[in-house]
């Protein structure tokens, strides 16, 4: 066995943002912010409201093209004009509102926009059975148990809905999973469950970027923390080398 003596803990970066900038009219929402994400790493984005966290993840997920700077995926420069292209690279985003259709069941949500189709006599039919079983399989693998798969998901709890959103991303082979305030609307036990899920994802080599106001969550699951303030990166530290007070100081600029 070759000892990986000097090799870094992570072999090659999965995703890089190199000095990306974004303007909205006169507002400089993001100024030359760089970020590197390795497989199996959890990267936390901390910062006050308006610090540019959302803008940054929207650039990475293809919602906004950057005005300056480049994105690289596995070392190759990529251009993302829409979320579809980001998803094709395995960059999946879970927004705070989860982007679930409450009136549809679990399977339909997992396959939203990518419904499988079977043909009878040349006519396409949406394959509901497949959507249900595949969704169930994915969720079971993540240790998520939802009993009534046929109900519209408005009847699920906040944590279960969060799980469906995560399950959807994983089902579509997310390699980079971006989560915006994943625990904000949850009760404590469900928060814990989501944190466990993130730890699971890390184990399976997914790179996770997550935005949170909650320093307890950040310190619980992240490996590295990037702090943004007013559109610029004001700090990037390994979790083990910092503490919540230091992060707060960076966030508010004290």
């Amino acid at each position, binding site marked *: 066995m070759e000892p990986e003596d000097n090799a870094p803990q992570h072999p090659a970066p999965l995703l890089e943002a190199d000095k990306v900038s974004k303007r909205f009219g006169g507002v400089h929402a993001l100024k030359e912010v760089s970020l590197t994400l390795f497989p199996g790493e959890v990267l936390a984005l901390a910062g006050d409201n308006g610090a540019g966290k959302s803008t940054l993840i929207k650039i990475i997920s293809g919602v906004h093209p950057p005005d300056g700077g480049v994105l690289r995926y596995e070392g190759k420069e990529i251009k993302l004009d*829409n*979320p*579809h292209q980001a*998803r094709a690279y395995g960059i999946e*985003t879970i*927004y705070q*509102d*989860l*982007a*679930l*259709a*409450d*009136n*549809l069941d679990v399977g*339909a*949500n997992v396959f*939203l*926009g*990518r*419904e499988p*189709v079977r043909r009878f006599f040349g*006519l*396409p*039919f*949406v394959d509901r059975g497949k959507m249900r079983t595949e969704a169930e399989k994915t969720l079971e693998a993540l240790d998520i148990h939802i009993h*009534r798969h046929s*109900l*519209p998901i*408005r*009847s699920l*709890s906040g944590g279960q809905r969060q799980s469906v959103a995560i399950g959807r991303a994983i089902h579509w082979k997310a390699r980079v999973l971006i989560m915006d305030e994943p625990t904000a609307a949850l*009760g404590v*036990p469900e928060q814990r469950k989501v944190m466990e899920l993130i730890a699971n994802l890390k184990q399976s080599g997914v790179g996770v970027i997550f935005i949170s106001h909650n320093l307890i969550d950040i310190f619980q699951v992240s490996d590295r923390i990037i702090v943004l303030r007013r559109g610029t990166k004001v700090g990037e530290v390994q979790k083990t080398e910092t503490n919540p007070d230091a992060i707060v100081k960076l966030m508010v600029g004290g």
Partner: protein
Amino acid sequence: MVTSAAVAPTEQKQASWLDFLATFRAWLFLAILLVTFEIWARAAYNTTFLFNPFNVKSIALFTVTPLLLALGQTFVIISGGIDLSVGFTMGLSAVVTAHVYNWAVQFGNPPLSLIMAVIAGLGIAIVPGLINGLLIADLRVPPFIGTLGMYGVTRGVAFILAKGTTVPLQGGLMGEIGNGETIGFPNLVLLTILIILAMHYLLSQTRYGQHVYAVGGNVNAALRAGINVRNNTLALYVLSALSAGCAGIFYTAKFNAGAAQAGEPVLLDSIAAVVIGGASLFGGSGTVIGTIIGALIIAVIQYGLVFVNVEPFWQFVAVGVVIIISVLVDQIQKGIGTDGTRG
């Protein structure tokens, strides 16, 4: 965890019971109505209501026009929109169909004239549908306002083309088909059944239909999932206009004349049919089958009250009450389904 686990089962039970009621409320209404009229007819006139083939045929024919308008409306309402222009789109289509048929038939080929008239009737219907769709999908005009505007435009144009009067058909084929029967079933009813099958398939079995539900449930989710919401919306209003166009063509065929006001009294019935059939005006729910039941309920109320000799104005009262009860059930179900705060 303990509390949520303890609370969840009862909530779920309640929700599923109400879900059940919401899903089948239209069937329940229809059954109650049919039984009521049957008992009424037997008690008061010693005759049958339901087991009279003439009544069944009449109700089926009576249902055709509101149902056709309601089918397109179902898609629009599920997406969270509404189409107020369908009544006069139908009238416009009826008038244009009659004009084109009359013009073409003078060259002595009725079947070809009929085909041309049908194409013209559908073609003219697409115009307001496309304008509605572009206004709503691209210019972000609220559906209520955009289609209200087109209600006015189509109304005016239809009356102008009809020169303020009805346009009688010259020559018989179209009227013969419109009033004819095939193996004992009225042609228009058979054609409507074909349209129903196509619409039901489109809504319940295709990706397009699935996306209509997604748009109505959560537009942002649909957008982020990569669904082309713009094209989806555009297609919705064209579809609605096409189904109104069919209603216009059928009207002309049935009455041997096109009339601008053909669909005017039916517009609200069509929306009522969709809502009674279980669709929510907030979008996200509804089915073709529900809408059929809804349209049948309205037709049975209207026809039944005439049959048992009640003053016709009671129809409006009865239909109104059924609409309100339907929406109440929808509201209560929604309230329980989420966190109980929504009234």
